[in-house]
């Protein structure tokens, strides 16, 4: 049973609630592919993106429109009341009067929770600074369930595990499913101890290594992330690290047959374009699955439940 008013972090989801979102998403997939629906007729979703976004913003918009609902956009902050110095609290109070739910992305950590305290309608967090991005995690779980398996899963999270909010939330959610997690990163970008101890305390098996080659034969899912150039003061060091986590068809030759490669996108050069044609690539499906998963959340929050 889904009893949420807002969707702010994965920490607030039980295993059962995640299952109910994923099950509903599966039933809505035909609509995500274009089957006509008026499930959300008369409903309006507000998109408040204070930071650039392509996939998240457009997939929410697609999800709402394909279910027959409407979308209103805050637009660039420069032309809005924000540029006149309006607080986020006032902005969400006002826009909450125009819409049935709102999606917010904001550069400050905790902004979505603040919005939830002032908004008269449900708030969905679409990224709050380095904080949380729960709908990305839900679509990642959906992808793993559809394209691999969530039970007895062995997964490697690769790349920037220190600053990447995606992998923090995903690791937490996978701990609810008893996954076996291998963390692959350069020493300077390891997952913070606080998150690792949180995982271990839930009985999750967590290993750490710098060597991607050593794990590729032993996992069901390779979850790649972008290593950001700006994290490295020395460009030579960046290149060294970035190249060490580059996936190519040759590198994948020794992988398990059913191994899938995921990436929250955008990628830079951590996955060679030639991998796209291999049996392992799933990152474009993953991106598409954002639509049915966001449809499911919208339906649960404002469309009359499961």
């Amino acid at each position: 049973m889904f009893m949420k008013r807002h969707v702010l972090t994965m920490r607030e989801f039980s295993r059962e609630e995640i299952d109910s979102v994923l099950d509903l998403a599966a039933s809505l997939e035909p609509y995500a592919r274009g089957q006509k629906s008026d499930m959300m007729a008369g409903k309006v979703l507000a998109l408040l993106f204070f930071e650039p976004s392509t996939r998240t913003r457009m997939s929410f918009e697609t999800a709402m429109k394909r279910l027959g609902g409407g979308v209103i956009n805050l637009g660039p902050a420069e032309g809005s009341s924000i540029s006149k110095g309006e607080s986020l609290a006032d902005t969400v109070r006002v826009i909450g009067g125009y819409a049935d739910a709102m999606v917010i992305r904001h550069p400050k950590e905790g902004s979505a929770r603040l919005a939830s305290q002032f908004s008269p309608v449900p708030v969905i967090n679409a990224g709050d600074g380095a904080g949380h991005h729960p709908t990305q995690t839900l679509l990642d779980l959906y992808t793993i369930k559809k394209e691999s398996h969530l039970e007895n899963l062995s997964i490697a999270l690769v790349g920037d595990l220190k600053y990447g909010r995606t992998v923090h939330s995903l690791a937490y959610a996978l701990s609810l499913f008893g996954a076996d997690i291998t963390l692959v990163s350069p020493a300077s970008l390891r997952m913070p101890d606080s998150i690792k101890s949180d995982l271990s305390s839930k009985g999750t098996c967590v290993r750490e290594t710098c060597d991607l080659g050593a794990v590729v034969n032993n996992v069901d899912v390779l979850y790649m992330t972008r290593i950001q150039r700006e994290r490295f003061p020395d460009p030579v060091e960046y290149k060294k690290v970035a190249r060490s986590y580059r996936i190519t068809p040759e590198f994948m030759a020794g992988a398990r047959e059913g191994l899938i490669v995921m990436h929250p996108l955008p990628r830079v050069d951590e996955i060679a374009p030639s991998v796209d044609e291999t049996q392992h690539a799933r990152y474009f499906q993953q991106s598409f699955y954002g639509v049915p998963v966001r449809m499911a959340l919208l339906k649960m929050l404002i469309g009359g439940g499961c």
Partner: protein
Amino acid sequence: MPETKDAPKVLRVKPINNGTVIDHIAGGQALNVLKILGIAGTTDATVSVVMNVDSRKLGKKDIVKVEDRELFEEEVNRIALIAPAASINIIRDGKVIEKRSVDLPDEIVGVVRCQNPNCISNTLEPIKSRMLVKTKNPVLLRCLYCEQLLTDRIAEYLI
């Protein structure tokens, strides 16, 4: 000389007639307690501070005596952030009329600033800081907004 049960007690500071005695402050924290109470060097209040005396319970402890001021509950909560073992004695006419231990509530509102400069609570939004108390001794706080943990140097983040 360490104070023992059998040794005669020597009073370092004379008893007060009215006000508050805060005992069992962790050694060295008395000045932070004064900061929490808003007592700066320019105060008119009569304040006695005893630091690093031997204590059976804490090893070393500090004591603060504030004359003619009875602490409010909110102030007591603030003290618990840096001195969780402290005890508060309210004195009237030379008698202890109330003895309280300090006990942190599950949530501290508007007392400690989040240490994350990118937290929404450190902006001009119309909200107070809200810290969830994860453990009481040692004190471990988590910002309700950005979830950043705070355990060391709490005194530096007092509002």
